[in-house]
């Protein structure tokens, strides 16, 4: 009787559904795809090691984002040159799977995504990460506060400033998408 085989079959790869979010967070923190990949892999390795300490009903997603951030902070402390990390030149090439879209839709979508990425890249790291956690991962203020190890009030004020800065950076895109919509509706 092969019980090991039975239990392995229907257990999904743990936390794999968060891999895009974790990878995005890692890219936002490191601004380097290669480092981001290593960071994500290390996060999963640590998560496996710490699984025994995870309480039932824990928020796995927040927990994994916290692990990733802690690893990154430790790396920063070791490197002490984090502020001089080069921006990976390959970042401008989008890898989003867009099968099924017509060429124009793909073009518009890619342009818009690239403009969003570029705007986020220009933000300070504390703004980049809070925008990622809230707008892309839709974590609650309390979950973000736990990950960032700060009060929820700080999350609110930082998010507000980050959005204001991002809106300024993205204003040409917002105007363009608004006029596109008007043209469509007309």
């Amino acid at each position: 009787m092969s019980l090991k085989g039975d239990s392995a079959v229907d257990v999904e790869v743990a936390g794999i559904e968060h891999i895009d979010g974790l990878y995005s967070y890692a890219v936002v923190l490191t601004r380097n795809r290669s480092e981001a990949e290593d960071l994500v892999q290390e996060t999963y390795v640590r998560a496996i090691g710490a699984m025994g300490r995870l309480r039932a009903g824990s928020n796995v997603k927040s927990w994994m984002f916290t692990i990733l951030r802690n690893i990154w902070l430790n790396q920063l402390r070791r490197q002490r040159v984090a502020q001089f990390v080069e921006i990976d030149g390959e970042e401008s090439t989008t890898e989003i799977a867009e099968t099924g879209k017509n060429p124009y839709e793909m073009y518009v979508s890619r342009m818009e995504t690239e403009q969003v990425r570029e705007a986020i890249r220009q933000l300070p790291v504390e703004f980049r990460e809070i925008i990622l956690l809230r707008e892309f991962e839709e974590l609650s203020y309390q979950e973000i506060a736990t990950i960032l190890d700060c009060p929820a009030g700080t999350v609110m004020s930082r998010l507000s400033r980050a959005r204001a800065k991002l809106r300024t950076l993205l204003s040409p895109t917002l105007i363009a998408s608004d006029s596109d919509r008007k043209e469509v509706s007309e």
Partner: protein
Amino acid sequence: MNVCDEQSSNILLYLDNELSGQELEDFRAHLAGCPACKAQLAEENELSALLHRARPLYSAPEELRARVSATQQVPLFGSASERLRKRVVRLLKMPLGGIQSPASPLRALAAVLLIVAGVFLLSRFDRHARATAYVDAALATHRSYLDGALPLEIRSDSPQTVTSWFAGKVPFDFRLPASQSLPDDGQAAYRQVGARLVSFRGSYAALVTYAMKKDQISLLVASTNSAPSFGGQEIRSGALTFHCHSKAGFNVITWSNHGLTYALVSPEHSSARQSCLVCHQNMADKNNFQEQ
């Protein structure tokens, strides 16, 4: 600080679903009569919609997925049923001294039967809990959409356009329900309005909205792995089984097909069959719905 300034600071909280109770009611009341706050909310919504259209910000490369999968040869986050299964494994692997005694075979058999029954019941309970959570998520999403807290990221009455838009954005092969056969009288009972991504169980699900003459309905689509269809009143239509739930003034109908689970939320009607006919009342298959 005047009243509007004070409420203005609540705009982000409202947008991020961080207001509740009296604060939420007060803000909604203020919003109804304050053009400045309405305009600011629209601006914030516009920025959020732009950011959401760019999701996921980056996609993990396939190589990385493979490397992560390779590191996970053991189950990590066990559900209750998984933990029970592990206990069963441990129990069955234990060198039970009693098994060698003359009276033990019956006891061992009884124990195994009890364990099998327990696993079956727990598995069923787990499935039911996840199905209920999906119904609740669909209902909460629909209400947020009606409240204006979930602006659409794409507006289109074309199913093909919406299907294309979801490609690569959701962690499954998005398909609209296949039973959208042409109405037999040429008049569509509903009109597709648009769609957006929504969070579900730490990942993304697809929300598609429709408008009827008076009502708005929404369709939440997720993978069957994360959202089984179960419970409620069952209605059969061909090979599909629809599960109909009535909650808080709405009907939520769920069904699974080809690895996707759909949850249709509509205003409450007098029976589940009528609710199914929200979409099928003018269709050729309208007589296919039989209540069980």
